[in-house]
């Protein structure tokens, strides 16, 4: 009340209030979305792919796209706002370097972006389509599921759109709320004919994106947006491929298997450390990487259900839309995952 009164008195003199700044509001309250729910764990510097350079996630994407445009004269990149560099700066510099016929904006229409991309691919050129947020991929669902995924099969292999890769920023970011935080991979996970890939880091992202682009099947590549700036690694400047449909065991363990992808891999690494320290439990951490077709071999050596000593636990967001101010309570953070491990051990 006092603060508001002060505001009323001061406005009589007009500009004085603005110039005085916002100090009259008192000390700032804690902002729920200020702190990240994970710590990014960079991988060791790769040695097998030549010289490396410090890059964050969006720069590693740019590097992959740069390599592609350089080596493949048919490759084109398109979507909303990619021309000036993209809302997440993934395409910065590419239009100037490779030309406006190769890096260009499209009208604001996701079904058009993917449909157009399918056509480019069918005609034999490499198409890299950007959907501005994974949350907006749904208008393109028909083109992805009914068209792209089925193109080769339904035509008896006469036609295909294997040259198509769709990229989209993905996952929670601290304040994204319903429409800037979604992880929609589950909607595509049961659609034969496409591949769905989610990297955990810059090094992984570049190698996996290049594999998606090279892959002769239409691929969806989701990029964890919270890692665009936060994840920094030494990334090879030359192109390299990380194979699809091969899960990576980041840490071997004997008691509990933790499977995750994207940002959550880093959460699980911490959970594994906490479980070891506080519970003496040895956790295996697996980054699934490719959601479809997924690596059943690595995750579940043969039919493993009879060998499990506890039911499988899924720790996810709640069955609500992704909330804004409640995000810290909604997400499957390290405490919830740790607790799931604890309950599992005591099953």
């Amino acid at each position, binding site marked *: 009340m006092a603060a508001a009164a002060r505001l009323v008195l001061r406005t009589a003199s007009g500009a004085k209030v603005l110039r005085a700044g916002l100090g009259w509001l008192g000390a700032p309250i804690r902002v729920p979305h200020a702190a990240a729910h994970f710590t990014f764990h960079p991988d060791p510097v790769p040695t097998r792919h030549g010289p490396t350079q410090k890059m964050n996630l969006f720069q590693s994407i740019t590097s992959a796209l740069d390599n592609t445009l350089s080596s493949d004269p048919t490759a084109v990149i398109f979507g909303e706002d990619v021309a000036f560099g993209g809302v997440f700066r993934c395409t910065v510099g590419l239009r100037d370097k490779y030309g406006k016929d190769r890096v260009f904006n499209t009208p604001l229409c996701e079904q058009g972006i993917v449909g157009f991309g*399918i*056509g480019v691919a069918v005609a034999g050129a490499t198409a890299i389509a950007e959907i501005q947020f994974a949350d907006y991929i749904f208008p393109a669902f028909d083109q992805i599921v009914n068209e792209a995924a089925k193109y080769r099969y339904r035509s008896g292999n006469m036609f295909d759109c294997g040259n198509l890769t769709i990229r989209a920023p993905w996952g929670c970011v601290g304040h994204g709320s319903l429409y800037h935080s979604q992880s929609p991979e589950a909607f595509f996970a049961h659609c034969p004919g496409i591949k769905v890939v989610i990297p955990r880091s810059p090094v992984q992202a570049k190698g996996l994106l290049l594999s998606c682009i090279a892959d002769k099947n239409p691929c969806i590549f989701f990029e964890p947006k919270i890692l665009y700036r936060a994840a920094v690694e030494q990334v090879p400047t030359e192109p390299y491929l990380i194979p699809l449909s091969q899960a990576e065991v980041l840490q071997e363990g004997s008691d509990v298997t933790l499977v995750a992808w994207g940002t959550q891999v880093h959460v699980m690494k911490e959970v594994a450390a906490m479980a070891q320290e506080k519970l003496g439990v040895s956790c295996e951490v697996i980054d699934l990487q490719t959601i479809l077709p997924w690596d059943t071999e690595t995750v579940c050596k043969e039919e493993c259900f009879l060998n499990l000593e506890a039911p499988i636990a899924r720790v996810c967001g709640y069955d609500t839309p992704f909330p804004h101010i409640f995000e810290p309570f909604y997400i499957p953070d390290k405490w919830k995952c740790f607790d799931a491990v604890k309950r599992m051990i005591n099953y």
Partner: protein
Amino acid sequence: MAALRGLYRTGLGALCRRKGYQGFGVTHYRPFRVNGALHQQPFDSLEEKPQFPGASAEFVDRLEFIQPNVISGIPVYRVMDRQGQIINQAEDPKLSKEMVLNCYKKMTLLNTMDRILYESQRQGRISFYMTNYGEEGTHVGSAAALEPNDIIFGQYREAGVLMYRGFPLDLFMAQCYANADDLGKGRQMPVHYGSKDLNFVTISSPLATQIPQAAGAAYAVKRENSNRVVICFFGEGAASEGDAHAGFNFSATLECPIIFFCRNNGYAISTPTNEQYRGDGIAARGPGYGMMSIRVDGNDVFAVYNATKEARRRAIAENQPFLIEAMTYRIGHHSTSDDSSAYRSVDEVNYWDKQDHPISRLRHYMTARGWWGEEEEKTWRKQSRKHVMEAFERAEKRHKPRLDLLFSDVYQEMTPNIEKQKEAMWNHLKHYKEQYPLDLYDK
């Protein structure tokens, strides 16, 4: 597709080596087009003209809504009258006798094949069929104006385009029967044709999905500098889909060499055009996208031919899309699953069958020139029917494709889980083979 890509890469490689750079821009001259930004005054100009980036026109100080003109809308271009007489000699494309006869024979062959395959569905020999009655002119007129390398995206009622290109009766039948000769490997319902050799992209059931795809293909073709156009067929019903709007807008903004060919045949299954749209058809939408547009008499082979020919020439030369709305009438039912007497009168159908049919109009043109008569008609009818029946009998006898083809081509490579499922199916058949019609399938 790989061959196409290879050809493209070779040409491109040569071009890049010669020019010494990695990318290349479009080299066609693009004529001046009215564009908001071009007409803007500099900001310090004394004239009070609109400066909005979105549109440039003039200011106006009278409140007046634009009235959509649906009574006397876009006129219908035609070359022949309903009796096949040329109205304006300058518009007669003066095609050779050989070409005109070929057009006629393809339309009538299609008609014959339609009758026989429709009947075969009725007899339970194939599962489903869609006829092309009344729209043969739209198929053959457009196909005749294209080059073999032009890429065709269709909807499902364009069999005549494929037939004109040379798709053999045996392969039409093979697809409808889903037998072992089907290029599509028996995976789709009848009439979902495709041919890589003839540059006819395989048909899919969802409507209008091909429209933005065709725009993308045209963009890639433009970058190749290969003197090809993409043509995209769809009906007036499919034009209501969001994908149609997307395709039109993309093709205009991205300057694609494409012909959008709308077959406005009056019905989308049972839905007449006055329940499909309220504006002046599909042609009137073109200008809204900044697209060159024309409405033609779809039952006039020469009108369709002229419009397609000119659109092709300009689309390639100027890298812009063209919209052709071919007015016609769907004489047959939507498909074998439809009985159109439920929603339209027999009189209406008869009018189009008897008074304004693309086949009879072309025949009048031919007979007037002494290129065709009763004898030729009788002989050709007998011959075409014989060809169709022979192909039909061959298709009937042919086995279905081998069962492994259920599992291949999902991805370019076989994946472990699909391989496992295939093994599971064969294993299942070992124990339950009597329950399945294995004899019908190739081993």
